[in-house]
């Protein structure tokens, strides 16, 4: 090779070359086909190495590690049917919330039982034995008020529950799970259904009864996780593209080709997610699709503004962190 810029080309594709040097090297590359070929070869090697897919799916942690992780994580990941039914719980604060709700339900049942046993046979005695009036409680009718009267006398409990509810948890308060007098009727569960906000990080949590993960196949899950991971890598690489002074962005052949490959798979996976009713995954794939499409349709040497527009959209939609979170979540769900 007449001119040896190979080392600089290596730095250029890593974004480690100073701006001035990068600009002059870009200029040189546009004239020297040999050096341009070196860059194409380096980028091709990069695409092959970065596209390497592990032969084995990341497996479950062994016991010692599982114990460490379980301190904060698996308690929420392995939460029971009640938590899922209530729709509460993320990695932080599930125990407090769950304990509060469970205590409330048990307390309500106990009060209801005592009230039923005591009040029904001897309504007058109950009234005389527990004369403390409670503000805001109607005294006009008989039977429905008995639990309230009893609660007022066992009484530290309602305020205590209220305090616990708003106390140590870091989650935003949910008015629907504050204890109310109506909840002294032991039928609270239907009120809490579907109260969990959409959360990409919890997508496809294993074991969820109405969880889309349970109705999607393991292979699709694995493919989706991989797709998220590869898309994330592509978007990161795209985000790091360097603008040039001449108004042209650096070579994007690798990113464009990768986007074309990922686009096809994205469409497939989105359709499958739609069919399976996995709304969260389908939504994320739908947001990803136009970005992939735009990158795939870029010219060989697009203008800075074209690239910048796409970069801004990537940032605005927070796709990179969402993809990262989801690739892990989906991979875990598939374990």
């Amino acid at each position: 090779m007449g001119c040896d810029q190979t080392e600089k080309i290596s730095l250029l594709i890593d974004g480690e070359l100073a701006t001035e040097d990068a600009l002059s090297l870009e200029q040189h590359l546009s004239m020297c086909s040999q050096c341009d070929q070196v860059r194409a070869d380096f980028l091709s090697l990069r695409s092959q190495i970065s596209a390497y897919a592990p032969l084995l799916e990341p497996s479950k942690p062994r016991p010692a590690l599982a114990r460490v992780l379980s301190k904060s994580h698996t308690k929420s990941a392995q939460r029971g049917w009640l938590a899922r039914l209530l729709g509460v719980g993320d990695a932080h604060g599930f125990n407090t919330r769950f304990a509060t709700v469970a205590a409330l339900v048990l307390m309500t049942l106990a009060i209801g039982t005592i009230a039923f046993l005591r009040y029904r046979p001897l309504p007058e005695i109950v009234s005389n034995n527990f004369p403390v009036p409670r503000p805001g409680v109607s005294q006009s009718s008989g039977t429905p008020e008995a639990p309230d009267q009893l609660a007022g006398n066992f009484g530290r409990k309602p305020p205590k529950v209220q305090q616990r509810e708003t106390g140590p948890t870091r989650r935003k308060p949910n008015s629907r799970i504050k204890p109310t007098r109506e909840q002294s009727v032991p039928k609270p569960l239907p009120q809490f259904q579907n109260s969990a906000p959409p959360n990409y990080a919890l997508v496809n949590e294993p074991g969820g009864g109405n969880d889309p993960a349970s109705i999607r196949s393991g292979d699709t899950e694995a493919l989706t996780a991989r797709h998220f991971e590869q898309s994330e890598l592509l978007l990161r690489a795209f985000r790091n593209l360097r603008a040039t002074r001449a108004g042209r962005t650096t070579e994007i052949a690798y990113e464009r080709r990768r986007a074309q490959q990922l686009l096809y798979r994205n469409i497939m996976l989105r359709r499958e997610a739609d069919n399976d009713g996995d709304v969260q995954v389908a939504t994320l794939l739908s947001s990803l699709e136009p970005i992939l499409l735009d990158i795939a349709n870029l010219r060989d040497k697009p203008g800075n503004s074209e690239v910048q527009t796409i970069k801004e959209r990537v940032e605005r939609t927070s796709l990179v962190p969402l993809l990262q979170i989801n690739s892990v979540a989906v991979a875990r769900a598939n374990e």
Partner: protein
Amino acid sequence: MASEDEEFTTLFQDFYPSLCRFLECLLDGRAALAQDLAQESFLQLHRTAWSKLPPGEARFWLYRVARNLAINEFRKGQTRSRSFEHLVKVMRPRRRNPEEEYEAQEQQRMVLEMLQSLPEGQRTALLLREQEQLSYREIGQVLNISESKVKVDIFRARTTLRETWSRRNQAFSSRGH
């Protein structure tokens, strides 16, 4: 304490898959061993350094330890069989047809072969750059070497791989004729 555990779990979720892939490429495709060593790295992190490391350092620490564990495995030569092998199941993403499947497997095998032709230091530096997208400075932190050494290692690795690639292509086309 609880938040430290949560942070550790988040770190595990974020980096376990990529650490496995990194080790797998380093260890010539020995996937189960790679996962074992990745888990060992996380355990060591939790046991020894988790509370002492400044924020953001854990990732580099992990890759450093993982690499050292991998080097130990190289030294052992023949790796002992592990019961861990039985716990993992094979994951091969299904492609549209067997031809594509075969092609992808061949591609993976070739990548591994080419990587194995590199000296360990160059291979590690290149993997950290191409797969984990670490900067030269970060790679230097992981490998405990200077940035200029990283620069040279990556450059040499690329040059070697390019030559290997070119020789393969020539051999392939001469066989074809």
